[in-house]
């Protein structure tokens, strides 16, 4: 009984999921697979403005869908990848780029890791120099004064006494 029902049930589920996939995948892919690949890659590098830390390729937001459509339109119009990004940057600013551009206002951002690393190395070097200086001062203690020598002699003679 169950086995006989398995095939229709599977078919039903398949139809259900297929219709769901159709409902979600509203994007119309480009006919040329290479162009479609480019569209997807560009979309992955653009930030969704509504959901902030998702790319427009990953986002379900209506605006992300509109922007994906624009990316495909620009590609069909013959834009290069850079031109497609520039089109959206002109409207939404550098903010739409998931990779911040390298320019005067972002130098601090890009160089901060190197700067911090240099500070850290400098700090560690200073610390070791400090340690070494202290070690050296412990190896070569100041010479004993006559008074100290007398006191040592006194103590030693006490210990070795009767």
């Amino acid at each position, binding site marked *: 009984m169950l086995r006989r029902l398995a095939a229709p049930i599977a078919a039903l589920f398949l139809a259900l999921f297929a219709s769901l996939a159709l409902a979600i995948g509203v994007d119309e892919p480009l006919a040329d697979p290479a162009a479609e690949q480019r569209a997807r890659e560009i979309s992955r590098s653009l930030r969704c403005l509504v959901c*902030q830390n998702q790319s427009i390729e990953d986002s379900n937001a209506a605006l992300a869908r509109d922007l994906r459509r624009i990316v495909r339109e620009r590609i069909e119009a013959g834009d290069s990848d850079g031109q497609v990004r520039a089109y959206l940057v002109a409207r939404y600013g550098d903010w739409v780029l998931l990779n911040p551009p390298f320019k005067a206002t972002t130098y601090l951002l890009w160089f901060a890791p190197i700067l911090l690393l240099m500070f850290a190395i400098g700090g560690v070097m200073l610390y070791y120099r*400090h340690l070494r200086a202290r070690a050296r001062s412990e190896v070569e203690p100041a010479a004993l004064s006559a008074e100290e020598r007398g006191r040592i002699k006194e103590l030693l003679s006490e210990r070795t006494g009767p």
Partner: protein
Amino acid sequence: MKLRPHHIAPVAIFAIVAVFLYWGLYLNPRQIPTALKSKPVPEFELPPVQGRSLGLSSEHLRAGEVTLVNVFASWCVPCRIEHPLLMELHAKEEVTIHGLNYKDPPRQAAAFLDELGDPYSRTGADPTGRVGIDWGVYGVPETFVVTRDGRIACKHIGPLTPNDVRDKIVPLVRALKADPKQEKTC
């Protein structure tokens, strides 16, 4: 013990980091600065919302008048919150307000204005949202202050509050009306 630089360094570094983190607390990641500030409004031409006769185009925004362009939609709940403020601005004749109706079915847009009142001198219906994207719209409502010569002086993101209108929008509009160079921004 003598205080040496490396004794203060951890405290100093902590203090610097703390200052930046404190500053960061007051940044709103939802407010993305517009790329269009001081730039001419995008070129567009839209038919009016259903039942109204005056459409909106970039030409109307360059006509020598300081204007507000309010991006609204019937499905946008915060738009209902700010709507009375727009009605008030309109009633006081403080500034000409134009409406950009973003991704809205025609009948619902008309019903929204019929129900709540129409503060707009002109409306532009943008059912596909293409013009909205040219304006850098990403969340409705948004309100733009446009100079006499059709440049974007200010973009306000989210619903206007009475404070926004009193402290930001109205002073800027008045300044622009008085300023022959039209250089004031927010």
